[in-house]
């Protein structure tokens, strides 16, 4: 690529010809986190503690101490997160190739189905139908599942019942197929987790985690504003914090979208 093409991109962003869409929720203590049975180790919730706020603790400056688990807020999953990816090279957020942090996305709109069924599952035939309309999913693309789940209030968003969470996600067959037949770089979801709320009961359990990370691919979850993306052509910038041997991290996910 010629260097002047990059300058053109910068100019297009500046002029608005390329829109920058923020796909990130605000990292805050009240945003729902993954719920595991209490006897397991738990993700530390987001905590923001003031160090000073233009006061006696620091008269001219405001700053906070922040703590959170690697899997809180809008966050990134690296292959090392799951047992299937534990022995892969460069499988953590600090060692993954930087070039994987920028990639195009295919956005599959299933908001109508998810509105009808909180346990809606993406399947191979649904993706094939999408491909018939928008073309084959190219290799090293993100597949983002749009469900408009991010527009719900927090309780409906987490949607916890006495038999677990009920939120949409991919079924096992489509995850295996996307990874093996389409070579996706990763899968993104609007819900808490790349997998469906009931995915612990699937075969294999948590298929998105299982197949993505087993093949060295990535996950994005708690995304929002997917309704502002075209079905194809958006470029996703997703660079997690460089945490030593980190399994993931909260991050700012942005999409570049051509306005024309």
């Amino acid at each position, binding site marked *: 690529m010629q260097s002047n093409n990059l300058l053109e991109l910068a100019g297009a962003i500046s002029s608005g010809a390329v829109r920058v869409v923020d796909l990130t929720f605000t990292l805050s203590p009240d945003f*729902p986190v993954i719920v595991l049975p209490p006897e397991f180790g738990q993700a530390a919730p987001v905590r923001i*503690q003031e160090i000073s706020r233009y006061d006696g603790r620091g008269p001219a400056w405001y700053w906070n101490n922040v703590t959170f688990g690697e899997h809180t807020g809008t966050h990134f999953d690296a292959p090392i997160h799951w047992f299937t990816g534990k022995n892969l090279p460069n499988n953590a957020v600090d060692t993954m190739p930087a070039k994987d942090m920028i990639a195009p996305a295919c956005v599959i709109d299933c908001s109508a189905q998810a509105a009808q069924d909180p346990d809606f599952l993406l399947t191979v035939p649904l993706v094939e139908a999408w491909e018939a309309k928008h073309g084959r999913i190219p290799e090293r693309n993100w597949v983002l599942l749009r469900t408009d789940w991010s527009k719900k209030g927090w309780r409906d968003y987490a949607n916890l019942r006495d038999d677990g969470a009920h939120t949409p996600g991919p079924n096992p067959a489509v995850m295996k197929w996307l990874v093996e037949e389409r070579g996706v770089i990763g899968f993104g979801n609007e819900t808490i987790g790349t997998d469906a709320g009931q995915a612990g009961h699937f075969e294999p359990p948590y298929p998105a985690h299982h197949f993505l990370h087993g093949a060295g691919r990535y996950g994005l979850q708690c995304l929002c504003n997917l309704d502002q993306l075209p079905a194809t052509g958006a470029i996703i910038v997703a660079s997690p914090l460089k945490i030593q041997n980190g399994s993931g991290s909260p991050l700012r996910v942005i999409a570049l979208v051509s306005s024309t």
Partner: protein
Amino acid sequence: MIEPIKPPRRKNPLLRTRLPASPPRPRSRTSHGFTRAAAEGRFMLQRCKACGAFAYPAREACPSCLSDGLAFVDAPRRGTLLAETTARVPSDVYFRERAPWRIGLVKMDCGPTIVTHLHADCAEGAAVRMSFQLDKSGQAVAFAHPEGETPNMADDKQWREMTADPKFRRVLVTNGRSVIGQEAVAALKAAGAKTVFVGIAEPWRPFAGEQLLRGQDGIEIVTLDAADEKSATDLAADIGGKVDILVNTTEYVRPGGLLDRRGTSIARDEIDQAYLGFINLAQAFGPAMRMRGADGVNNSAAWVNILSVYALASWPGFGTYSASQAACLSLSHCLRAELRPGGVRVMNLFTGPVDTEWFQTVPPPKVAPRAIAQAIVSGLKGGLEEMYVGDVAEEIRQRLAANPKALERELDR
């Protein structure tokens, strides 16, 4: 005959809120034998080991036989009111603001004569029942009650200064997800609390009993994650000036000691929930409570902690939990000292294992959550500072007093 107190009207915003004053504080070291009795709701006097005579006030030697073998023991409460007087214009600021104030002289059946505060229904020449109470300075004072029940007895003006009765007061129960929290809400409401604010952390998580809490008059569900500084501060910004009694029902119990647990994340959670949560609540709600200690019928009156009795002595099976509770116990003493200028009491309830899921495999006896809730109310009504709820808590206390080393070895099983 006591006139029942009336529900307080809304405050006149043109009037300055009266600041709390404190009754006289100095006491001799020996006199704190009464402080201990008052804190626990016991009536104790010094008794001579040599001649058996009871003594009052606190002395270094027996007034009958001059023996120095005086020990505080539980004493019979009955006496006769010899004389009474009413102070109309006392020189002390605290009593001047509350005048007229009645005091009397009670001849105890067991011997000594005691100068005492009087319940309004105590009549000269009649029998009275004595107690020691903690006044707004946190110091022990004698208080004479009529021998039997009288109408609206708890509404007596002088008695209400000695207690933190929930009647007409507004209470914050900090964690309404737990069974203890929900039982506390019900008990406080039944005790006449005007409003019970019920803190719910992470409201997106459903919880058992939610339907029961919602839609009840006088119960307001509020978002509160005590372990989150901002959440506590935000809630205090809304209701900090309306919390007369705060009941800290934080509950975070995880079994396990040191060596068989990996890492610090559970210990961190324990500290986060119990200890830092306590600090967040204190910093958010404490200053306003301390300032509102004399704010009319529904002045701020008390802060209640529910602590494990293993705060006093580690139970290795729940070792890091015990440590988190010990930290909270230490913090409660700091809070008590800092709330003292406002006349706000800090009451600690010590419990053994509670009948909840985290003590599921622990054999009985276990404390029923309802018993804790009832103890909260009776402790507030009696103006207590320390309560031991259930057999285990009481036994640990006694064994600790008898021989701490023996208790340490016995808990190591």
